[in-house]
C-alpha cells in the first residue's frame, strides 16, 4: 500500500491546480470508448433523461394514432390487431419506459449533487442499469415495428396473455421487457438508497435532507419492495407459456386472479413510484419560486413515508369487479380513501407555502400551478373510484382513463416539465426560453384539460376502455371527435417543448451557477457541474445551505486528488466516516448488459438459455469486479 503524501491532497492546493487535477482524474475521455464506458452519474443521468423523453415522444405518437382511429365511429384507419398493440405499447411504454425511468433518471442526475457528493454509489451498476433499460426499450419497440408487439394490455391479464390465448411471442416480449426495466429500476433504487444513506455531505442530518431527496429515498424503497412482485409475475407467465407450468391454469390448481394480485401488488405502488418524485420536484420548485422554505417540512416527510406505506395496502381496488369477498373489498375502500389524507396534507402545505411566500411566476412555477389545478381533480376522482359501488360503474371505462391521466400527467408530467425548465440550466449550462415556456405551458394545460376532461363524461355515458372502435348509434362520436382535436393542441404543446429543449441546449442563453436563487446544494457548483461535481465537499449547516446572502460556502478538505475519492458519512447525522474510492470508468457494465440481454431474449425462445446464457454473464461480471490495480482499488 502506498502511503499518500500531502502533495496528493487538496488541502493546501490552489483552486486552479485543484480543478486541473480533479478534472484529470474524473473526466470522461472523449470518443466512442469513453462514451460507452463512462460511469459519470451526470452523463448517464442526462442520457437516461433524453432516452426517456424519446420514449415519451414515441408514446405520444401512439396516442395520436389512437385518437385518429377513435375520432369517428367504425373508422378503418387501424385494425383491431394493430390497435391492440398500439394501446398496449402506449401504456407499457409510458409506464415502464418513460414515467418510472425518467423519475429515477432525474434522481441519478440530481441526488448526488443535492447531497453534495461526487458520484452516485455503485456508478458501474448505474451504467449497467442504463444499458439494460435501453435494451429493454429497444426490444419492445423493435418488436412493435416488426408487428410482434404485445397486444395484451399493459396489465397483460391472463388467460388472454397466457399460453392458450396469447399466440406467438408477443406476450413473452412484454414479460421480458418487464425484466429489463425492473432490473434497471431496482439497480437505481439501490444506488439512490446507498447514496442518500452513506454519501451525504457532512452535517446533512436527516432533518436537513432536501425534500426531493427524501421523495427519491421513499420512492427507491417502494421500488425495492414492489418490483419483485412483477418479476415473480412475469417470470411465472413466461414459465407458463414456455415450459408449461400451471400458475394461472384453473384446471390444474392455478388461478387467474393470482396474476391480478401479483400485478397490482406491484402496479399500485408503481403509481406512487411515479408520483412521489413529482412531490419532491414540486417542493423544490415551490420553495425556490415563493422565496421561502416549504411549509411543514416534517409533515411533508411524514406524508411521503405514510404514502409509501399505504401504497402497499391498496392493490385490491383494481380488482373490485373481479368477484372478491365483500368484506375484503370494504377494507380496501377504506385504505384507498385514507391515502387522500397524506396527499391532502402535501397539497395544503404547498398552499401554505405559496400563501406565506412571494410567488415569482416563472415557467417552472407555472407548471406547478397547473399541477395543483389538475392533480386535485385527479385525486378527487381517485377518491370516487375507491368506492366499490362507484367503481362498478366506472371501472374499465373512459372515466378511469381520464382519472389516471389527471393523476399521472397532472401529478407527474406537469411537475416533471416544470423540473426540466427548473434544472435545465444545471443540466446544460443554458436557460430554456421563458417566452416559449409560457406558450408551452398554456398549450399543454389547455390541451390536456380539453382532451381528458370530456373523457370523464364519456365513461359515465358507458364507453369502455381499450375498444378500437364504437358503433355510430352510440352517443360518443361528438365528444370523441372533440377530444381528438384537443389532443392536437396537447401534441402541439409537447412538440414546442421538444423544439425549445433542443434549441436551448444548443444556443440558449448561458446560465450562471444559481440562476433562480435556489438554496439547495446542486446550485453551489457551476452549471453544468464539473465531472467531480464539487472541488471540495460542501459542509451543510441548515436545511437550506445556500439561503440568505451566502458569500462563502463551508467546505471540507483532505480528500486525495490522485484517485476518485469521495466522502462517506453516517446514516443519521451524516458525520464523516471514511474517504472512499469511487470506481473509475469501465466497459464491463456494457458487456455485462449485452450478455444479460442475450440471455433474457434467448430465454423467450428456449429454457436452456438460462443455463448457457448465464455463462457469459458470469464471465462479464467477473471482468467487472476483478481488481485492475488502479488507485481506486487501494484502501
Amino acid at each position, binding site marked *: 500500500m502506498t502511503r499518500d503524501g500531502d502533495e496528493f491532497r487538496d488541502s493546501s492546493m490552489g483552486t486552479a491546480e485543484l480543478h486541473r487535477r480533479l478534472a484529470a482524474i474524473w473526466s470522461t475521455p*472523449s470518443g466512442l470508448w469513453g462514451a460507452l464506458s463512462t460511469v459519470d452519474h451526470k452523463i448517464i443521468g442526462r442520457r437516461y433523461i433524453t432516452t426517456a423523453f424519446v420514449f415519451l415522444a414515441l408514446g405520444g405518437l401512439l396516442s395520436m394514432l389512437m385518437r385518429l382511429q377513435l375520432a369517428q365511429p367504425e373508422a378503418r384507419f387501424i385494425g383491431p390487431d394493430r390497435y391492440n398493440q398500439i394501446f398496449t405499447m402506449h401504456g407499457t411504454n409510458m409506464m415502464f419506459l418513460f414515467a418510472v425511468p425518467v423519475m429515477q433518471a432525474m434522481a441519478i442526475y440530481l441526488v448526488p449533487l443535492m447531497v453534495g457528493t461526487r458520484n452516485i454509489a455503485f456508478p458501474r451498476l448505474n451504467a449497467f442499469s442504463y444499458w439494460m433499460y435501453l435494451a429493454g426499450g429497444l426490444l419492445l419497440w423493435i418488436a412493435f415495428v416488426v408487428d410482434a408487439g404485445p397486444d395484451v394490455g399493459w396489465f397483460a391479464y391472463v388467460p388472454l396473455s397466457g399460453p*392458450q390465448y396469447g399466440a406467438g411471442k408477443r406476450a413473452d416480449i412484454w414479460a421480458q421487457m418487464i425484466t429489463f426495466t425492473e432490473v434497471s429500476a431496482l439497480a437505481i433504487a439501490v444506488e439512490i438508497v446507498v447514496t442518500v444513506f452513506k454519501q451525504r455531505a457532512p452535517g446533512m442530518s436527516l432533518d436537513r435532507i432536501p425534500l426531493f431527496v427524501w421523495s427519491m429515498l421513499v420512492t427507491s424503497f417502494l421500488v425495492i419492495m414492489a418490483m419483485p412482485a412483477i418479476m415473480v409475475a412475469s417470470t411465472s407467465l413466461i414459465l407458463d407459456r414456455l415450459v408449461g407450468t400451471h400458475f394461472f391454469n384453473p384446471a390444474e390448481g392455478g388461478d387467474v386472479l393470482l396474476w391480478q394480485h401479483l400485478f397490482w401488488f406491484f402496479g399500485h405502488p408503481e403509481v406512487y413510484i411515479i408520483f412521489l418524485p413529482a412531490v419532491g420536484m414540486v417542493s423544490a420548485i415551490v420553495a425556490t419560486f415563493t422565496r421561502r422554505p416549504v411549509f411543514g417540512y416534517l409533515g411533508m416527510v411524514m406524508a411521503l413515508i405514510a404514502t409509501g406505506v399505504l401504497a402497499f395496502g391498496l392493490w385490491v381496488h383494481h380488482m373490485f369487479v373481479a368477484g372478491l369477498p365483500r368484506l375484503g373489498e370494504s377494507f380496501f375502500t377504506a385504505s384507498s380513501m385514507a391515502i387522500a389524507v397524506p396527499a391532502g396534507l402535501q397539497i395544503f402545505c404547498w398552499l401554505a407555502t405559496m400563501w406565506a411566500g412571494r410567488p415569482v411566476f416563472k415557467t417552472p412555477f407555472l407548471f406547478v400551478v397547473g399541477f395543483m389545478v389538475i392533480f386535485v381533480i385527479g385525486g378527487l376522482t381517485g377518491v370516487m373510484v375507491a368506492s366499490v359501488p362507484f367503481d362498478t360503474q366506472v371501472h374499465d371505462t373512459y372515466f378511469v382513463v381520464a382519472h389516471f391521466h389527471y393523476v399521472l400527467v397532472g401529478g407527474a408530467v406537469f411537475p416533471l416539465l416544470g423540473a426540466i425548465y427548473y434544472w435545465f440550466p444545471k443540466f446544460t449550462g443554458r436557460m430554456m426560453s421563458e417566452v416559449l415556456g409560457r406558450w408551452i405551458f398554456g398549450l399543454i394545460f389547455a390541451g390536456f384539460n380539453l382532451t381528458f376532461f370530456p373523457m370523464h363524461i364519456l365513461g359515465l355515458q358507458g364507453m369502455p376502455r381499450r375498444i378500437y372502435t364504437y358503433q355510430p348509434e352510440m352517443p360518443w362520436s361528438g365528444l370523441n371527435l372533440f377530444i381528438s382535436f384537443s389532443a392536437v393542441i396537447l401534441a402541439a404543446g409537447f412538440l414546442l417543448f421538444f423544439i425549445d429543449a433542443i434549441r436551448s441546449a444548443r444556443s440558449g442563453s448561458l446560465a450562471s451557477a444559481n440562476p433562480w436563487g435556489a438554496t439547495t446544494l446542486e446550485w453551489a457548483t457551476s452549471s453544468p457541474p464539473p465531472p467531480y461535481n464539487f472541488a471540495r465537499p460542501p459542509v451543510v449547516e441548515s436545511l437550506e445551505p445556500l439561503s440568505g446572502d451566502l458569500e462563502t460556502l463551508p467546505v471540507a478538505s483532505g480528500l486525495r486528488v490522485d484517485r476518485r475519492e469521495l466522502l462517506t458519512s453516517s446514516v443519521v447525522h451524516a458525520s464523516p466516516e471514511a474517504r472512499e474510492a469511487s470506481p473509475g470508468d469501465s466497459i464491463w457494465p456494457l458487456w455485462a448488459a449485452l450478455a444479460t440481454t442475450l440471455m433474457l431474449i434467448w430465454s423467450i425462445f428456449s429454457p436452456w438459455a438460462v443455463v448457457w446464457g448465464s455463462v457469459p454473464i458470469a464471465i462479464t461480471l467477473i471482468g467487472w469486479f476483478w481488481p485492475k490495480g488502479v488507485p481506486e482499488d487501494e484502501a
Partner: protein
Amino acid sequence: MKEKVSSFSNAAFALAGLLFLAVSGGILGWFRQPRELRLDPPVAADLDRFRLMPNGISGSPPESYFAIGKPYESDAYNLSQGKRLYAWFGCGSCHGDGRGGVGPSFLDGWWLYGPEMVSIVASIRDGRPHGMPSFRDRMTSEQIWQLAGYVQTIGSYTPQVAAPSRNDDEQTRPAENRGPAKILFDEGPVGVHPDQGPTP
C-alpha cells in the same frame, strides 16, 4: 474543450445506438409475425388447388401458398387457430390429445400418409379409408390448412418456436412447443395403436 468532448461522445453514442438498433432490428425482423385476419377469397380458393400424387400421399401446394410465405406451418397465430379448430371439430374424439384412440396417433413418428402439409390437408379435406371422415363440407379451406399445420406440429420431433403452448385445461401431455413426440419417445416406445386399423 469540455463542450467538444461531450458533443463528440454524444455523436459516437448515437452512432452506436443506431448500429445496435439496426442489428437487433435485423434479428427480430426474422421473427416478424403479421396477422392476416381476413384471407382474400381468391387466395382462399386457390389453397384448394394443391396437387396430390395418385396414391394420395405427398404432392405440391399451389404456387400462391409459397407466395404468401407458407403461413400455416410457421405462423404462431394460424397454428393456435388450428389448435382451437382441433377442439371445435372434435378431432380429439378419435385422435385423443394426439396420441390416438380410434384414429391413429400423431406422436409415434409414423405418418400413414407422410408428414407433408398437402397430405395432411388432403386427409382432412377428403377423408381417408378406415374411418377418417371428410371435412370438405364442414370447414373452409383456410381452416383446413390451419388445422393441418397444427396437426403437423403435434408430432414434430424438433419443437417449433411458433408452435402453440399448453391449453388452460388438464395436462395430459407436454404442449406442442416442447416437442411432445420427442419427450414421450424418450420416456419409452409408443406402439401402434391396436384399434387404428391396417396401414394402407
